[in-house]
């Protein structure tokens, strides 16, 4: 069985300050992990992915995430928030090679204020 927990449903930061969106996972197998972003009234877009290569993964728009097996975490970070980062972010765990076994977190809404 696999599961993913996004620890915050809502995060608010000021523009120019760091962003931290937290994700913990549970998986019986070596997981693949993803972060997707959803801007208002849009579909989800892949931000970054971890697939058992480097534990620090860089994605688009300056985001990165670190896979920590000992902590079963895959937190998403960005050094400096921009207004355009305001969106909903989803952490996803996948069992490799199984098309249907993608488990989504419940999402974290990021608000960026001036």
């Amino acid at each position, binding site marked *: 069985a696999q599961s993913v927990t996004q620890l915050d*449903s809502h995060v608010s930061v000021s523009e120019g300050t760091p962003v931290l969106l937290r994700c913990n996972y549970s998986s019986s197998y070596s997981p*693949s992990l*993803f972060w*997707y972003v959803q801007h208002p*009234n*849009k*579909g*989800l*877009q*892949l931000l970054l*992915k971890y*697939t*058992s290569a480097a534990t620090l993964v860089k994605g688009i728009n300056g985001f990165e995430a670190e896979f920590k097996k000992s902590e079963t975490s895959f937190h998403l970070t960005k050094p400096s928030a921009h207004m355009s980062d305001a969106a909903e972010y*989803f952490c996803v765990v*996948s069992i*490799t*090679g*199984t*098309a*249907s076994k*993608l488990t*989504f*977190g*419940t*999402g974290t809404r990021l608000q960026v204020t001036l």
Partner: protein
Amino acid sequence: DVKVTQSSRYLVKRTGEKVFLECVQDMDHENMFWYRQDPGLGLRLIYFSYDVKMKEKGDIPEGYSVSREKKERFSLILESASTNQTSMYLCASSLLLEGTGANVLTFGAGSRLTVL
């Protein structure tokens, strides 16, 4: 640029109506998915298909059916719409990352369905 296109962005239907949601992808992907997105619940898998005419139930298939007659097209059908099916519906197709077997999803923009 790769694309998943959902034919209707917004629909309003009445209870008991039959509803068709259409999804087309131009990436030659084998796998296609229908998800339902509700606030606080994340995305839940309704059905998926790994080949033409093949389908598998996801986590919440009740009240829904699907059709995949061509590789690029995956339709979601609500035989008799109910108010509890008011939701955002997202279609996706997937590519298996070479050497990893991990699925990467490409999503459509979504279809927001309201059932009155």
